[in-house]
């Protein structure tokens, strides 16, 4: 068991209220605070913990996108990853990039780096797709342990407890495998200042999708982005009687 690849995505920070562009071509991202996707933080934490428990020797953080994503890779390095890989994608390719293209990149990297595990976040909080892990596993023909809330390495197999609709499910999958991290898998650590300084010295390799033989053509087009139907303003009520009257007037009861 030598190497784990962890995917990290740079997304608009979860606390930011997003705005749709006036031309409906997308969401405003310029000048808006970005950070690491919360599920990716959990994925990084799990990989680093596996390394601390000596199940694996090296954790490689990977991100796809323009130059700014190197900040996200540095955060992963500060959390304990050993080195990073920045797959440069920018301009129209970046705008059209979706989970299928990312999965192809990760599959190619997993083979190139001879990874035993690929750990990704369950979903990105911008597109809410919840697809990349499953597709990466398919392209590699590896098993998938998705929505993981507990991961235990057991020899050449991984026992994964998964969060499903009715509760929890336990599966055992052989390695190499792809795991996707759900919310309760762990609590990600804060990067301490000494680790942030150490991270500056860690290596981030640069490459392009073409170097990995990946075709970035996407056959999905975003036609338009809209705001959800406008809601009416809320009303504060002071007594239960008022509440009942308002609910009746509203037609709810």
């Amino acid at each position, binding site marked *: 068991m030598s190497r784990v690849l962890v995917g990290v995505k740079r997304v608009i920070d979860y606390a930011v209220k997003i705005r749709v562009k006036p031309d409906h071509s997308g969401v405003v991202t310029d000048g808006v605070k970005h950070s690491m996707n919360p599920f990716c933080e959990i994925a990084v934490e799990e990989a680093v913990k596996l390394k601390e428990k000596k199940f694996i020797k090296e954790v490689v953080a990977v991100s796809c996108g323009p130059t700014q994503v190197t900040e996200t890779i540095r955060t992963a390095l500060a959390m304990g990853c050993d080195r990073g890989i920045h797959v440069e994608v920018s301009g129209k390719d970046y705008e059209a990039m979706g989970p299928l293209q990312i999965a192809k990149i990760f599959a190619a990297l997993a083979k190139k780096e001879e990874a035993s595990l690929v750990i990704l976040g369950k979903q990105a909080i911008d597109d809410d797709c*919840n697809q990349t892990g499953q597709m990466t596993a398919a392209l590699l023909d590896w098993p998938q342990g998705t929505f993981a809330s507990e991961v235990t390495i057991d020899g050449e197999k991984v026992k994964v407890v998964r969060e499903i609709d009715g509760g929890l499910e336990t599966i055992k999958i052989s390695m190499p495998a792809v795991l996707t991290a759900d919310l309760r898998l762990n609590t990600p650590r804060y990067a301490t200042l000494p680790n942030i300084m150490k991270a500056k010295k860690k290596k981030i390799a640069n490459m392009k999708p073409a170097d990995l033989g990946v075709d970035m053509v996407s056959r999905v087009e975003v036609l338009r982005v809209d705001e959800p139907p406008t809601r009416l303003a809320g009303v504060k009520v002071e007594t239960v009687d008022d509440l009942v009257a308002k609910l009746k007037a509203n037609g709810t009861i």
Partner: protein
Amino acid sequence: MSYRLVYRRVCPRSFLPFCRFQSTLVVAEHNNDKLTPITLSAITAAKKLGGDVPCLVAGTDCAKVAQEVSKVLGVKTVLIAQNDAYKGSLPEELTPLILATQKQFNFTHICAGASAFGKNLPPRVSAKLDVAPISDIIEIKAPDTFVRTIYAGNALSTVKCNDNVKVFTVRGTSFEPTEVDGGSATSEEVAVSASAGMSEWLEATLTNSDCPELTRAKVVVSGGRGLKNGENFKLLYDLADKINAAVGASRAAVDARYVPNDMQVGQTGKIVAPELYIAVGISGAIQHLSGMKTIVAINKDPEAPIFQVQSSTLHFHVASIHHVHCVNLARFAWLGRCNHLQLFSLTRLCLR
């Protein structure tokens, strides 16, 4: 009769790409006893596309579910695949089956409900077909154009898929379930694939509940961190019992282990779309509230984000009912059978 045979007779070879007969395979989710309701919503979506709707029932003991599916209005064929390898609906085992079925019948669309099962399996299938899946759609505008939510429901994205087979999952709350009545589908066994052998289903620990199912309920009562601990959720269960509501929880309450994970409501939990949502002791983070119609928020913090939400919400600032007499609470008519003391205790709790 295979679809290839139909269109070869109708269309000259040169026109084949334009004459492909539309059909949407619905992959059924079930527990070898009953069909999961979200599959009925997936069937509704499939019917909206036009064309045939075959339904695949794969499992260890399919007869009963296959019988149920054959009665669903609009389903043309029930494709049955029975094998012990399908125990636990492992995606590694079901994917080769779906790929073989696709190769045999050449569907134009493949879909499933966007449940944990639907999120786990279709993306694996679509990557093998080298197509991009479209997840959790809320509307179909055309056979190649779908609407889905992004940013926790704070924006809607209309996407056009130009792949030769569209794989998508359907949000259950956006499509009314089809009637299990009036249908008379034919059944056909499909060849079972060889076991992939890379994954093993061990066990499931499911929470038993007599409450209505969260994603289908018309009224949902949810608790958050403001309830302080898991025992206090009993107040919500009792209230829900009286008014036939489902009980949910915010991410914070689940993280703090007040309640199990399957009760989580919101962007990364279950999408609910009730007529009435009662949020007790929930701060109202953006990610929690997508999909709600009328929201009643009970919270002692007047600055809680839930009160800032632009919505048809009724913000019931709990501190002000501190002095309301029990008799007023008893007049909380829509709760009718609810013991006024229960509601009073609930609000007293939030005030502590």
